[in-house]
């Protein structure tokens, strides 16, 4: 059997925990997962749902179609800018980062195709849209939890799937669901993004 060597350093639990924190923070930065995309999209989607609600109930003029177009343009442009910042040498490969980026890219493409199809066919079904988005958000957070070893993100995935289950059993789609989705985007995208940012800066 392999034996441990005798190079164990001087015992100091506090110093060891500090070392672990700083190395884990470096590891997360290396993975390129700093929460910036989640903060961007979480804030953007939360704001869009609240503005849409205000527009639907008459507090604002009817701007829903323009609103989502602007959201998609800002979101994708921001994502591309953030993506360029985290671009690294092709010499480096990181399966975890690839899985993370692929999961969110799949979410983005799925939602973009859905909205484009809805616009082209002039047949927008908010219930189907909510079911699709909550389902793919849940999958993306599930993938993040697995590949980054972040167990709290399993709860975030479960949160999205709970909303999905709730929407599935609705017989009609109330306008208040826009508020629910706004709050959900804040709590289940923006907050996890801030959590990741905090992990990167404090290493806790």
């Amino acid at each position, binding site marked *: 059997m*392999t034996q441990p060597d005798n190079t164990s*350093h001087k015992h100091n639990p506090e110093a060891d925990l500090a070392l672990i*924190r700083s*190395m884990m923070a470096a590891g997360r930065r*290396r993975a390129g997962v700093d929460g910036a995309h989640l903060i961007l999209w979480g804030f953007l989607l939360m704001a869009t749902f609240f503005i849409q609600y205000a527009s639907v109930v008459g507090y604002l003029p009817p701007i829903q179609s323009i609103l989502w177009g602007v959201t998609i343009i800002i979101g994708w442009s921001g994502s591309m800018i953030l993506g360029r910042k985290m671009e690294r040498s092709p*010499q480096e490969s990181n399966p*975890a980062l690839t899985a993370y980026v692929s999961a969110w890219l799949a979410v983005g493409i799925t939602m973009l195709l859905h909205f484009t199809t809805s616009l082209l066919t002039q047949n927008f079904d908010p219930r189907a849209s909510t079911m699709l988005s909550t389902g793919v958000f849940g999958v993306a957070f599930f993938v993040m939890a697995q590949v980054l070893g972040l167990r709290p993100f399993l709860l975030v995935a479960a949160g999205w799937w709970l909303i999905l289950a709730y929407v599935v059993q609705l017989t009609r789609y109330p306008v208040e669901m826009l508020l629910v989705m706004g709050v959900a985007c804040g709590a289940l995208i923006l907050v996890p993004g801030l959590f990741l940012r905090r992990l990167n800066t404090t290493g806790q």
Partner: protein
Amino acid sequence: MAGYNYRAIDDFIHSRVRLMIMSFLAAARSADFTLLKKQLEVSDGNLSTHLKKLEDVGYVAQTKSFIDKKPQTLIAITEKGDQAFKDYVESLASTIGIKGS
């Protein structure tokens, strides 16, 4: 300050370099050899020795491949290594009275 509970400490992780490797990989999940060497500021030989020990107990896995015709060694933390690292951090945290590290 309370001392370590030596029986609960994983000797395979409890070396400064290996602790750094495991901490880094626990967050990054994988990294190539050159990056790890740069991050840890250790020599090729030193890193190889510590990686071999971790690989022998199944805490990390090394995969050799070619990217743009250049050799690359990718080091990834395994499930067993992930669990061992979590247990290590738990026992360390409990030593100084931190719950749910």
